[in-house]
């Protein structure tokens, strides 16, 4: 019975989602639904906080954890959910998406993320990630009148189901060799029975990591991301970039460090390849993008690579660097997507940013802040996070990879700061965008606050991270 306290945040979110589904037909305005989503997110975190002393470390037969690691990601996912809800109100109304369904799917996707972060068993992890991705497929295609939206959803669905199949096959092989699906039992079976070199187990490790690499859109499992982000309504893109990536990373860190600890040399090498490819390909392909959502998609691919750097040494300090990176990246990408959302149709393409500083100095300044952070320039949180992961990869002795990360960072400065140049050094074109809706402003200011605090007081978020 006390095990149930572990699930209270999930229960709160699901209850609100069910309530929204019940009233879906009678719900006309997005504002009502979005408010209830924000309330549910706050209630989920609040209840988790209040119950944290009564919560057992692990429950449900060792399949779910309520440790600091899970709580850290719970906060991140709830914040992502609340910010996305605030950002999306105007889009949902304008694109004539029915608010009940939209916000119910958002809540259920967030529930899947919470489950994935607290999973201690491969099957629960699969369940959580599938709940998240199934809702994401629908969210990407929910703007049915737009062909691009449906195309993005179909591509995401086809590649996503393939990746899920790989993941399941990996679970199957791991279970076949070790006879366990629990993280701790897999690791102990591998060490005690000397299975860590078993080729089938190694194949299982590779497949599980490939399945998770798809969720974080790491190269070569990134092909869905640009189309899905561009086709989706901008708030959905923001939610995927921030939440879905963090959920994938949360799962990857726990699986690698706890379940596959004896196979560390193998996954370390795999992650080196994934990280190097993601950083390089993401940065290079972003150079030629003119659509802002597509640019942010490629940026998210390269950031997935940076986040993986922390995991390569397999140490608690490195895992903590990856956690910080996921946290900081979520807020800065939510911020950048938030500006795209705030500028509406104008924000979708690069020319829309011409002379923004003259017409809307506040919006331009916020965008500049998020761009600096995405590039990794002090005094923003992006710099601190990037510094942390590169430091941990240097400590593991991969100097070449660290050099590649820094050089790609310089390359990425070109396409991030090009937007800033457009905003500050060119003349405005067309009509000036109107004032931002107050909900969007609140969400943007919150994201900006996190980005600044993380940069000025570098240890703030790192202090919250609890490696698995």
């Amino acid at each position: 019975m006390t095990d149930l306290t572990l699930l209270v945040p999930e229960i709160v979110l699901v209850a609100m989602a069910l309530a929204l589904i019940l009233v879906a037909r009678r719900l006309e305005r997005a504002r009502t639904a979005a408010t209830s989503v924000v309330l549910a997110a706050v209630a989920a975190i609040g209840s988790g906080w209040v119950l944290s002393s009564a919560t057992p470390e692990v429950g449900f037969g060792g399949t779910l954890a309520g440790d600091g690691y899970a709580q850290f990601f719970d906060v991140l996912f709830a914040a992502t959910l609340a910010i996305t809800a605030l950002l999306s109100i105007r889009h949902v109304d304008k694109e004539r998406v029915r608010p009940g369904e939209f916000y119910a799917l958002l809540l259920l996707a967030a529930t899947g993320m919470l489950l994935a972060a607290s999973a201690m068993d491969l099957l629960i992890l699969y369940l959580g990630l599938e709940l998240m991705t199934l809702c994401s497929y629908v969210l990407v295609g929910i703007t049915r009148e737009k062909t691009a939206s449906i195309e993005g959803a179909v591509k995401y669905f086809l590649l996503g189901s393939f990746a899920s199949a790989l993941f399941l096959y990996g679970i199957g092989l791991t279970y076949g060799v070790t006879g366990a699906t629990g993280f701790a039992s897999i690791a102990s079976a591998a060490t005690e029975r000397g299975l860590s070199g078993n080729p089938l187990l190694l194949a299982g490790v590779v497949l599980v990591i490939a399945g998770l690499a798809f969720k974080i859109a790491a190269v070569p499992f990134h092909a869905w991301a640009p189309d899905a982000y561009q086709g989706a309504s901008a708030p959905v893109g923001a939610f995927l970039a921030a939440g879905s990536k963090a959920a994938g990373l949360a799962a990857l860190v726990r699986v690698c460090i706890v379940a596959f600890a004896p196979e560390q040399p193998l996954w370390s090498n795999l992650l080196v390849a994934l990280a190097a490819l993601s950083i390089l390909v993401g940065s290079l392909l972003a150079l030629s993008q003119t659509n802002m959502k597509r640019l942010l998609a490629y940026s998210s691919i390269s950031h997935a690579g940076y986040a993986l750097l922390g995991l390569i040494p397999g140490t608690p300090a490195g895992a903590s660097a990856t956690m910080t990176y996921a946290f900081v990246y979520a807020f800065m990408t939510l911020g950048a997507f938030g500006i795209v959302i705030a500028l509406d149709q104008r924000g979708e393409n690069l020319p829309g940013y011409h002379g923004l500083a003259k017409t809307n100095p506040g919006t331009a300044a916020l965008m500049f802040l998020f761009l600096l952070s995405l590039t990794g320039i002090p005094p923003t949180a992006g710099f601190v996070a990037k510094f942390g992961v590169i430091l941990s990869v240097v400590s593991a002795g991969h100097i070449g990879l660290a050099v590649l990360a820094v050089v790609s960072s310089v390359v990425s400065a070109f396409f991030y700061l090009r937007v800033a140049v457009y905003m500050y050094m060119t003349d405005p074109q067309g009509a000036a965008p109107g004032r931002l809706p107050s909900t969007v402003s609140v969400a943007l200011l919150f994201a900006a606050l996190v980005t600044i605090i993380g940069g000025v007081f570098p240890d703030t978020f790192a202090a919250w991270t609890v490696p698995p």
Partner: protein
Amino acid sequence: MTEYLGILVFFALAGTVAGGFVLLASILGPKKPSKVKSEPFECGEPAFSVSAGHMSIKFYLTAILFILFDVELVFLYPWAVVFRDLGTWGLTGMSIFLGILMVGFFYAWDNGALDWK
């Protein structure tokens, strides 16, 4: 091995008789080929055609609703078998599960999925 000899003879005889008749039919039988008869699957029906026109998209919704109850049954059946052993705890869990499914059913009903128009 000798007890298998009978089976071997049986196979040989069956093969000879069947093969013999096919051979005889192809040598002695009359051959009057026509267009329909020369088709790969000669059976009196045209091989390629849309058999029943287009399927109504409404069947898709019905199929989805069927899955809802199918999944329900898959979980209800094993639960019913051990119903007494699980007691109140099992009953509560199953009620919550059914409740969530019914929310989905209510949503479909509420939005006109059951109206055949």
